[in-house]
């Protein structure tokens, strides 16, 4: 990202002025002049399953932070300072969201929001809500709810030690911490492993969910209440476990 000397001087003058005045119009002007840098960095992260326009949004956020935090007194070139900030933002985006396939941002947002909506409605109604009820509460269309349900499958596999999904109404904590320690169900789970050694390869909480859903016949809402996580999270973990089981079954035994 080479700039003409005059551009560089102009940029530096604006940054210095912004550092003193905090003028929002000026800040926007600086951001606009550096769009190329944000886009350039965003494109380095394409082909990872995220739409480029979303990546550019994230990069812009990084750029904005860089403008806010830049200290002209330190004598660094702005681009030298901004690049790691923007790249950091992009990396964090992938780490936090963990979306493996292209899911539009609005669908992701709805998916995450639906966790709360479904939980609240389930409590109010004393039963699992219908899709139109969810749509009405979330103020979106039925189709959007259905799409958001599908989006749960797009979640990238993550370690059980990774932070739990942010759809839960609680501070993010490692998923492992949410496992009931002395849950007797786990013993039964282990016995059931005889049926499918593959299940044993899943994280403990997912083994538990598989067990409760498929072997004990509990509903997703019941499992959510029991494990203290949102129903959307149960849904997502179930989808993920099943995909993992398939992948492993496929790897271990050639299909008939």
């Amino acid at each position, binding site marked *: 990202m080479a700039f003409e000397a005059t551009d560089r001087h102009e940029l530096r003058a604006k940054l210095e002025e912004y550092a003193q005045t905090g003028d929002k119009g000026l800040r926007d002007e600086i951001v606009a002049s550096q769009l190329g840098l944000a886009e350039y960095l965003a494109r380095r992260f394409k082909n990872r399953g995220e739409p480029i326009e979303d990546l550019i949004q994230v990069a812009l956020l990084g750029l904005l932070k860089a403008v806010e935090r830049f200290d002209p007194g330190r004598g660094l070139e702005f681009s030298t300072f901004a690049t790691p900030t923007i790249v950091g933002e992009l990396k964090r985006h992938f780490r936090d969201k963990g979306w493996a396939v292209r899911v539009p941002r609005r669908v992701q947002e709805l998916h995450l929001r639906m966790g709360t909506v*479904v939980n609240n409605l*389930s409590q109010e109604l004393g039963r*699992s809500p219908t899709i139109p009820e969810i749509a009405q509460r979330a103020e979106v269309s039925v*189709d959007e709810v259905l799409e958001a*349900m*599908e989006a749960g499958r797009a979640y990238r596999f993550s370690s059980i030690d990774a932070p739990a999904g942010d759809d839960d109404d609680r501070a993010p904590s490692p998923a492992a911490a949410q496992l009931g320690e002395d849950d007797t169900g786990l013993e039964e789970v282990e016995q059931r492993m005889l049926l499918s050694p593959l299940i044993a390869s899943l994280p403990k909480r997912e083994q538990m969910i598989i067990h409760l859903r498929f072997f004990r016949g509990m509903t997703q809402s019941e499992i959510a209440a029991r494990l203290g996580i949102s129903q959307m999270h149960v849904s997502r973990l179930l989808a993920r476990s099943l995909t993992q089981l398939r992948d492993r079954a496929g790897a271990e035994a050639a*299909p*008939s």
Partner: protein
Amino acid sequence: MVGEGREQEERPEGLDTGGDVRLTVPAAPEYLRLVRLTAAGLASRLGFTFDEVEDLRIAVDELCFHLLGDVDDELTGEPRRMALVYSAGPDSITITGRTGATGDAPEPSDLSEQILDALVDEHEVSSIDGMITFRLKKQREP
């Protein structure tokens, strides 16, 4: 169980009263999204709850995925297509379909069997006239 207002505008006439929905897609796992979405869409119209819709989606996916595994093994010049019929009853959905594969009905794995038992009321895979055919039915809670 359905709300007022909102779905009035989204509900074309005639679908609620048992009209069949037909879907034909290439017999490949990447098209299962459409298979699931169609199931979920129809189930939501019938007032299935979130839990029930989830169950149906997982079940149809589970069943089709395993059947598609067999399709991949048969190398023919023609890309195979999977055909499904979604039938809406007053409070149930029945999905029948063919993957385009022929021969004897494959044995489902124990786990797959267990999963389907937990999710839907009826499910079966059979070979009808040499065509592998599946069927599953999910009832709505009254």
